[in-house]
């Protein structure tokens, strides 16, 4: 920790670093909370072997902030490993709750549950208006092709996912102008207070794409966490779309949002397959990851629900 404290002070212009604590991070990053001259900050550091560049997240955060999306402020970011041993990102700490089940069930978040669907619509409308003229080589692949390739790579046959893929292929919407897309906009990746949305976090899957991808992903059944309402378990599609359009997000075709919801359900099924593979291949031995392989059928079930009457 002493080495880390000294290194943090150096990248933060000689600030006094105190209260360094490791937080339970994701699979690909180490996360620390600390104070620099008394200001609470968060530092994320890429773990070895993971290719995704921290620079994508830092750029997306800056663009989103400039567009008026509530986000943590970027304090420092670099892909130069010499300072902290790997790519890193330092942002302001935003207080609040990220655990979906608490946001959906705890009494104190009652007002937030009423406000969130509309706030999500406004945040996404602003995000999709971000100026992306200078982002250069931001990821911009066709997600249907990307996940088709992943499904082929895992090698296990999934007839239900093939049925859905055929529908997705035949109904793929025309490509609109590419905008900045968060790529994983849902409960779990937002910080929420009792009053509602405080910050959108976890921008490492940001890319250029169809703005409706974010709206559809937010409606995927897995992200309702057991709630009954389609938008993150807290709101209706109409609320989300109305707020999005009123905030200048452009006209929304509900059929296109539905396509992205089906796509997101299909994609999440494929991600579940890869999680189990991380265990069976020996990359990360874990009964938790292994069990996720048996959740693929939940997504297959949800695909049939989402496509009922639309095949």
């Amino acid at each position, binding site marked *: 920790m002493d080495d880390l404290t000294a290194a943090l002070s150096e990248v933060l212009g000689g600030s006094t670093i105190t209260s360094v604590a490791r937080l*339970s991070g994701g699979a690909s990053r180490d996360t620390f909370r600390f104070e620099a001259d008394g200001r609470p900050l968060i530092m994320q550091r890429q773990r070895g072997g993971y290719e995704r560049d921290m620079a994508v997240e830092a750029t997306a955060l800056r663009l989103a902030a400039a567009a008026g999306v509530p986000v943590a402020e970027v304090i420092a970011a670099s892909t130069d490993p010499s300072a902290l041993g790997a790519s890193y990102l330092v942002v302001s700490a935003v207080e609040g709750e990220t655990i979906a089940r608490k946001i959906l069930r705890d009494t104190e978040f009652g007002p937030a549950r009423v406000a969130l669907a509309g706030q999500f619509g406004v945040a996404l409308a602003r995000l999709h208006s971000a100026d992306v003229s200078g982002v250069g080589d931001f990821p911009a692949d066709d997600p249907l092709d990307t996940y088709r390739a992943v499904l082929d790579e895992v090698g296990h046959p999934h*007839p*239900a996912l093939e*049925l859905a893929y*055929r529908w997705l292929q035949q109904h793929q919407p025309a490509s609109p102008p590419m905008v900045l897309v968060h790529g994983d906009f849902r409960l779990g990746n937002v910080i929420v207070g009792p009053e509602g949305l405080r910050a959108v976090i976890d921008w490492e899957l940001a890319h250029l794409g169809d703005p409706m991808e974010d709206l559809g992903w937010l409606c995927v059944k897995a992200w309702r966490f057991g709630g009954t309402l389609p938008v993150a378990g807290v709101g209706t599609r109409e609320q989300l779309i109305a707020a999005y359009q009123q905030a200048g997000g452009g006209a929304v075709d509900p059929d296109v949002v539905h396509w992205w919801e089906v796509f997101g359900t299909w994609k999440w099924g494929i991600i579940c397959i890869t999680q189990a593979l991380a265990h069976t291949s020996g990359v990360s031995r874990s009964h938790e990851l292994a*069990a996720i392989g*048996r959740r693929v059928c939940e997504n*297959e*079930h949800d695909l049939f629900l989402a496509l009922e009457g639309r095949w």
Partner: protein
Amino acid sequence: MIPHDNPSAEQLVEAVREWLQRDVLTSTVGSVQFHTRVAINVLAMVERELQLGSAQAAAHQRRLATLGCADDADLAARIRNGELDDRLPEVRELVWESVRDKLAVANPKYLDPPG
């Protein structure tokens, strides 16, 4: 026939699951307790597969035979290349049955209507 003595595989798994539920879950906290809960769910899933597996295998074989497919790989390939396009309602019905069978083992609660 299998040559093993009692308890059966299902009963052995059940015994471990009961111990996790009775002793481990109540004496752990945080991450270990969470992973104990995951382990209990995994073992309950294995018990259901041991109970339902052979009947499900027979039903699945019948579904594949109805469609003239050797296995799931064959079925997946034929859906993908369009060979089954003129029978899609029937294919969807049979695949839906398999999805429900998978859920009956993996997470039977998921088959309940929401609410």
